[in-house]
């Protein structure tokens, strides 16, 4: 059963149409890799799922509940409730620099009064252990490497127990030698059947971890299917051209 349904998503910035009738579905436990050249609308699409971008038309539903139905957004309360089923990991981590690693994790649950302080702390420490950063709980983000920051950001997104985790180019801001540790955490999550949508330039990750790949260009989904099929045997010319460029670089 589809946990996320997106249909006919439309979005323009002024005259520029960045999303043209985007439709796709994500099933529970799917790992979807979204690839495509920069400026193709991948990030805008991902951001519109968590209402960081307002869309101009189309529908988004999570678990059968509409965030936006044919261009009309649900009421704020409803919107908040549905959006809370999704977590987001950003390219630039967006950790809160004035708070320690553990405080970054517990801030939202504490302010939203979900459970007790002890529970937050325990859950936070548990997630830090999961991403291999137990020893960094009391450190400020500035003291961490990029890879460590992104692992903290993933742990923070997991605090709300999201049903879907969205990643917006999670390794693009990292030095090449630091991408591995972040991808490893994501692989572990995939193994635990976390539903994930990942905008990425990591073709290897798309092939090895994702079970579905979507190629976007110029605001449209050009082609989608199994990653091995799409990456090794693309049907459309634009996909071929893109993969040719990426592999050659």
């Amino acid at each position, binding site marked *: 059963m589809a946990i996320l349904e997106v249909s006919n998503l439309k979005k323009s910035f002024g005259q520029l149409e960045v999303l043209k009738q985007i439709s796709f579905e994500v099933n529970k436990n799917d790992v979807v890799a979204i690839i495509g050249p920069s400026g193709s609308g991948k990030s805008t699409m991902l951001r519109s799922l968590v209402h960081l971008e307002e869309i101009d038309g189309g529908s988004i539903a999570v678990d059968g509940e509409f965030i936006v139905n044919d261009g009309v957004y649900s009421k704020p309360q409803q919107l908040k409730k549905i959006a809370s089923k999704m977590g*987001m990991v950003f390219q630039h*981590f967006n950790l809160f620099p004035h708070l320690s690693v553990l405080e970054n994790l517990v801030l939202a649950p504490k302010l939203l009064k979900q459970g007790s302080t002890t529970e937050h702390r325990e859950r936070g420490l548990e997630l830090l252990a999961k991403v291999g950063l137990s020893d960094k709980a009391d450190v400020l983000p500035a003291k961490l490497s990029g890879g460590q920051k992104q692992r903290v950001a993933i742990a923070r997104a997991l605090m709300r127990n999201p049903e879907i985790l969205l990643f917006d180019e999670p390794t693009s801001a990292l030095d090449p030698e630091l991408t591995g540790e972040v991808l490893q955490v994501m692989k572990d999550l995939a193994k635990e059947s976390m539903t994930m949508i990942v905008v990425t330039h990591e073709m290897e990750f798309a092939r090895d971890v994702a079970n579905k790949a979507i190629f976007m260009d110029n605001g449209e989904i050009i082609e989608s299917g199994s990653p091995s099929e799409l990456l090794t045997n693309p049907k459309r010319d634009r996909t071929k051209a893109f993969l040719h460029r990426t592999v050659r670089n």
Partner: protein
Amino acid sequence: MTIDYLLSILKPMLEGAQATVLLFLIAIIVSIPLGFLLTLAVRSAIKPLAWLANAYIYLMRGTPLLLQLLFIVFGLPLIPVIGEYLVLDRFVAASIGFILNYAAYFAEIFRGGLLAIDKGQYEASKVLGLNRWQTTTRVILPQMIRIALPAVANESVTLVKDTALLYAVAVPELLHFAQTAVNRDFTIIPFLIAGVIYLLITLCLTLFFKWFERRLRFD
């Protein structure tokens, strides 16, 4: 020049310094929060409010503080009909002038601090489910304070020195007593002492802000 002379002029000058410090404290304690509210007003989605706040800041920064003080202390009472109700104690009137003026400067400093905060901070807060109030107070404000602190420290030092403008509205303060002693005794010493007292006040202030900066450091 004797020790006795120094002591004899030091007493009134320290009393004057009290007025200086008192005005400084009143002005800074009220104008900083007021400045922040102004910043929020400037950034408000309610356009008339933003417009008013901008006009206010322009007015306060675009005219001399001395003119504003004279206007409040000596000008307001001259307004027909309501003027007689606007005769305030001169120290109170001057305090109001300083607060209104400095709030505008602090508003600009805070606005700069807010601009320096990455929009990713707002986005992360939103995705984590924080509302606007929680985002402002728990995520944005603490960072803004840290970013704005050096400029706030600088402005505070300026405020200490600006308190000398009380002289012009005849409120006895440090400079007033120094000037009186110079005229009476025909010596430069009181000016030097006044300078040293100002330096001591700004030194304390500078040390305090340095300490505060270290405490809030997160980079």
